[in-house]
């Protein structure tokens, strides 16, 4: 099959003063694409063609190519990770597109995700949020028996649903307000249902929300676009969990 690609090309990293840094959409035609190729393999073929022609290849992030690391991710025709639900870009295949399709490929767009080059963005803001409180503190001793603290099955499942987050940032990219609340909600919800996480629940909720706000993400308006594109299909329930945990923490604050 043949595809026509429109890809965002940008040489220099974005800065706060110049977020656009002279980037532009560039048109490429690519023939002999196999429907069985993954989306990233299709980009690999494009890059080989570009290198043969002596042109600069298209930079994009990727690592495991198994849908579990969260490194890959581009906005395809306006939808992060493309048209298939619950799928990362690396697990998307060209059979999801029609022969001769025009495909627009752009980087995640958010102030908190400055473009490094072409389709690569700096998602350090998500790491800084995690560092502010998305963990439990275990300072000493050996781990106790796994079943020493009984956890209701429904709680374990809620926590696990949130824990499947791979931190790809698609929720931010999809949100009309570039809000990171599905991501932060997943971190809050991941720990809030577990006894090990409840010890630090107040400070965690406060610190995560503070870190999120400082990174310049937008605010959730409950449009649920994030839920639709999340490759791990994390529900917006985690955002309600975060709101509740934050209100509880503020109510208990001295």
């Amino acid at each position, binding site marked *: 099959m043949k595809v026509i690609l429109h890809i965002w090309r940008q040489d220099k990293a974005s800065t706060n003063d110049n977020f*656009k840094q002279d980037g532009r959409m560039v048109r490429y035609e690519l023939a002999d694409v196999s429907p069985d190729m993954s989306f990233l393999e299709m980009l690999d073929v494009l890059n080989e063609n570009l290198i043969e022609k002596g042109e600069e290849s298209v930079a994009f992030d990727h690592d495991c190519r198994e849908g579990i690391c969260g490194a890959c991710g581009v906005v395809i025709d306006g939808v992060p990770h493309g048209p298939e639900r619950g799928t990362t870009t690396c697990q998307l295949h060209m059979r999801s597109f029609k022969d001769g399709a025009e495909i627009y490929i752009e980087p995640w767009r958010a102030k908190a995700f400055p473009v490094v080059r072409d389709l690569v963005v700096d998602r350090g803001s998500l790491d800084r949020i995690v560092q502010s409180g998305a963990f439990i503190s275990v300072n000493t001793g050996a781990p106790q028996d796994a079943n020493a603290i009984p956890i209701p099955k429904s709680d374990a499942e809620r926590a696990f649903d949130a824990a499947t987050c791979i931190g790809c940032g698609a929720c931010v990219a999809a949100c009309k307000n570039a809000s990171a609340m599905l991501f932060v909600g997943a971190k809050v919800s991941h720990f809030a249902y577990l006894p090990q996480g409840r010890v630090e629940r107040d400070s965690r909720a406060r610190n995560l929300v503070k870190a999120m*706000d400082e990174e310049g993400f*937008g*605010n959730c*308006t409950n*449009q*649920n676009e994030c*839920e639709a594109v999340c490759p791990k299909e994390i529900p917006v329930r985690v955002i309600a969990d975060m*709101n*509740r945990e934050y209100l509880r923490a503020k109510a208990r604050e001295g």
Partner: protein
Amino acid sequence: MSWLSSFWRSSIGGKVTMAVTGLMLFGFVVSHLLGNLQLLQGKDKINGYAKWLHDLGPMLWVMRIGLLAIFVLHVWTALRLSRANKNARPVAYAKPSTVQATMASRSMLLSGLSLLVFIIYHLLHFTLGVVSAEHHDLKLADAGGHDVYTMVTTAFSVPAIAIAYAAFQVVLFLHLSHGIQSMAQTIGLHHARYSPMIKTVSFLVALVIAGGNMLLALSVMLGLVGGAQ
């Protein structure tokens, strides 16, 4: 004060402010409709209600000032959050797309600002008598200055006014249909089974409120209410 200011400045604090003030304004819209539906029960009924409201005296002013404060807070916070949201995405997508967000949820700022314009017009019309002052004069003309029946039935017998009022109810419907369900989510109410129900209820309640208001304007325009009574 640092507790309050850190809450107020936080993203979730802003959202909760929207939800709580929204809930209060929703309460007002419900009582406003219930009060005004007495128009259908005849001249004495609605005018008696208007007199009762006015006879509250200082309490009426407490409610008016409180309502204004809540309203200003709602609009102010909406503008603050919207500006932050706009700043959060400095470069737009070349090919934007929407997967599942509803039209109502995407147009909250627009529907909200349209309602602001409508409410200002509505107050200038029926409360202050600045626009179409002849209607407001009718209210003061007899029955001790509380003849809202004649004022409203005369105003809505002008098709352009009745249709304008009715049209804004569509905007109110859009705003409430997303707003009511959004309030629950923002204050942390989410349930696998009940959240879809909240969405349905949100839609239906918005429909009833907007429909009730529309009924008042259109029934007068069509001559079902008013005239020689």
